């Protein structure tokens, strides 16, 4: 039996349209898009079409889109690039539930002499905009708040925070990696100056991502690049573009834009069916919300007296996660689940399930049955 893949917050399979676009790129756009000959200009044209598709998706201008190797590089470039563009130590504000690529970047800034304020969240993992306002200082260089959480799906009040940072004249960075596939994203409405996401979370290829930098910010003072070399991406990100991946990302964005709202409704339905099936068979506790203010396709839950890592070893043919996949090798409890105040036993029993474009109702039911069969048969965990 084929694996039921329900780990779409870790990564997504490529859409067939993306595979087709990348095949086209591999055979027709292999030239360096910076080259002056016809083949190079054709590759450049396709890259710019992809850039235009990304720009339209998030309501930006084409000149505000920079291609990176993924959200991790984008987050590093956004945060370090803003901090470094003005001389001397500065202050950065972020939240306790950000992805590690944001938190660890902030940690590196702290080690370099900058000050970092990490704001706590409430029991749902949501940041209070009032706390952001209170944390701002005259030397605050940046606020970084994610759009939606990768473990508990909480959607942050980014637009409210954007209004606060705009009024204070402080740039706002938003890691939209988890939200851009499910939520409408408009950089003007959100009030963000920097926004990042990766291709592989929206059925595109791995190894490519997007950094949006508002012209308002760039025109004042450009970000300091992390990579130096050939001056690609208007000097902000040197290195020959990964043309095939960029074109694949453009195709992924096109598919996404065509049906995001309907798909969100469908996925919320699958999640509901899964939870209903599960509830009939085994007790569990939700660690994330399933209503407005949460991503529609994912859920985080805990089975009582169950070690989730052990549980997943015993469930055949099911791909789910016990926390952030990026963090799963860390051998320590999830920083997100700790930040929302979950006790260690709940964290130990937590499972993250995320449905996706190719998930079916039959798979949702089978997954619930498979998890329940093992979780219900487990002996209690001893501390």
């Amino acid at each position, binding site marked *: 039996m084929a694996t039921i893949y329900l780990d779409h917050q870790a990564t997504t399979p490529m859409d067939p349209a993306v595979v087709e676009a990348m095949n086209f790129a591999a055979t027709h756009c292999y030239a360096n898009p910076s080259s002056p000959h016809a083949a190079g*200009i054709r590759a450049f044209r*396709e890259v710019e079409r992809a850039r235009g598709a990304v720009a339209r998706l998030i309501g930006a201008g084409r000149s505000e889109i920079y291609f990176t190797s993924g959200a991790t590089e984008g987050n590093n470039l956004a945060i370090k690039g803003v901090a470094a563009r003005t001389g001397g130590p500065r202050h950065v504000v972020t939240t306790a539930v950000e992805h590690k690529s944001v938190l660890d970047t902030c940690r590196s800034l702290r080690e370099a002499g900058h000050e970092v304020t990490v704001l706590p969240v409430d029991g749902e993992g949501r940041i209070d905009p009032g706390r952001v306002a209170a944390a701002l200082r005259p030397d605050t260089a940046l606020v970084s708040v994610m759009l939606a959480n990768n473990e508990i799906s909480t959607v942050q009040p980014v637009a409210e925070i954007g209004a606060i940072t705009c009024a204070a004249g402080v740039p706002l960075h938003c890691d939209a990696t988890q939200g851009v596939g499910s939520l409408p994203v408009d950089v003007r409405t959100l009030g963000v100056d920097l926004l990042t996401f990766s291709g592989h979370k929206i059925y595109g290829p791995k190894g490519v991502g997007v950094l949006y930098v508002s012209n308002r910010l760039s025109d004042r003072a450009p970000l300091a690049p992390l990579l130096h070399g050939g001056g690609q991406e208007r000097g902000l990100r040197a290195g020959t573009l990964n043309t095939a991946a960029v*074109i694949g990302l453009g195709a992924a964005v096109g598919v996404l834009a065509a049906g995001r709202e309907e798909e969100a409704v469908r996925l919320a339905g699958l999640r509901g069916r899964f939870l209903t099936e599960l509830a009939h068979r085994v007790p569990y506790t939700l660690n994330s919300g399933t209503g407005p203010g949460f991503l529609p396709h994912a859920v985080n839950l805990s089975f009582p007296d169950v070690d989730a890592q052990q549980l997943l070893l015993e469930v055949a043919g099911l791909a789910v996660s016990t926390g952030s996949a990026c963090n799963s090798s860390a051998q320590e409890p999830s920083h997100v689940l700790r930040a929302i105040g979950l006790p260690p036993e709940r964290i130990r029993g937590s499972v993250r399930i995320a449905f996706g474009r190719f998930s079916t109702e039959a798979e949702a039911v089978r997954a619930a049955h498979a998890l329940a069969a093992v979780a219900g048969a487990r002996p209690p965990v001893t501390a």
Partner: protein
Amino acid sequence: MTSTTSPLAPRGRTVPAGRVAPLLETVSPTSRSALLVAGGYFDTAVGIGAFSLNSFALAQETGAAARRLHRGNKVLYDVIVNDLGMSCSTDVCTLPAAGPAETDLTPLTAAAAEAGTDFTVTRERNLRNRAARSMKRWLREPAAQPLFSLDGDEIVFRSRQYEKVLAGVVKGDHVVPRCPLIVAEYFARYFARLRAFPDCAHRHVIDINSLADRDKVTKGAEIYLRTLGTPEEEIVLVFADAACADPTALTYTAYDF
């Protein structure tokens, strides 16, 4: 077997077939547009060669297809003539006006007559002098256009595509315009001509260039669109080799910057 059509190209609309298809991808088939197609470029020092003849033919073919796309479309043709007689980076301030009969245009006029069209000629010498005058006006009142700045004796355009765009060099009381500024000048003239058709909802300049001119015309397009462009204006930069058999089009609007 993979498709030879770009998966990112606009879908779901009727476009002309063949080599002109990418040049007209963004021209509306449902509302009237005014188009100026610039092809046939040549250098007076060299004369009308293969690129000039082939790009002129491509321009004629493009214009004819644009007319078929919508019966109300207005199409103008122009040929840019490099009569500077030198590299545009040469430090010469102003040039005497071009003489009227220094170039034999017969091959182009014959081709136009065969196609039943006519065309205008734009001389780079005139463009250069106009660009120099506009930069001198800017020097007197720099606040009027903050996208230019003076860096020593260099006039630099604050680009959103390139790290640096040199627009001109100040030499005493004179300004020597550089290529991007001369290009922006002809876009300004072209769009001014297209504004004579107020019933056309969109204005397109389709500019057929040799591959070697990619950067300077792209910089010039940005200068025009960010300083004088309006939302209904679009520049289609076309790049082709001497045969013009497989042209590549890049489309720019003010929104892109």
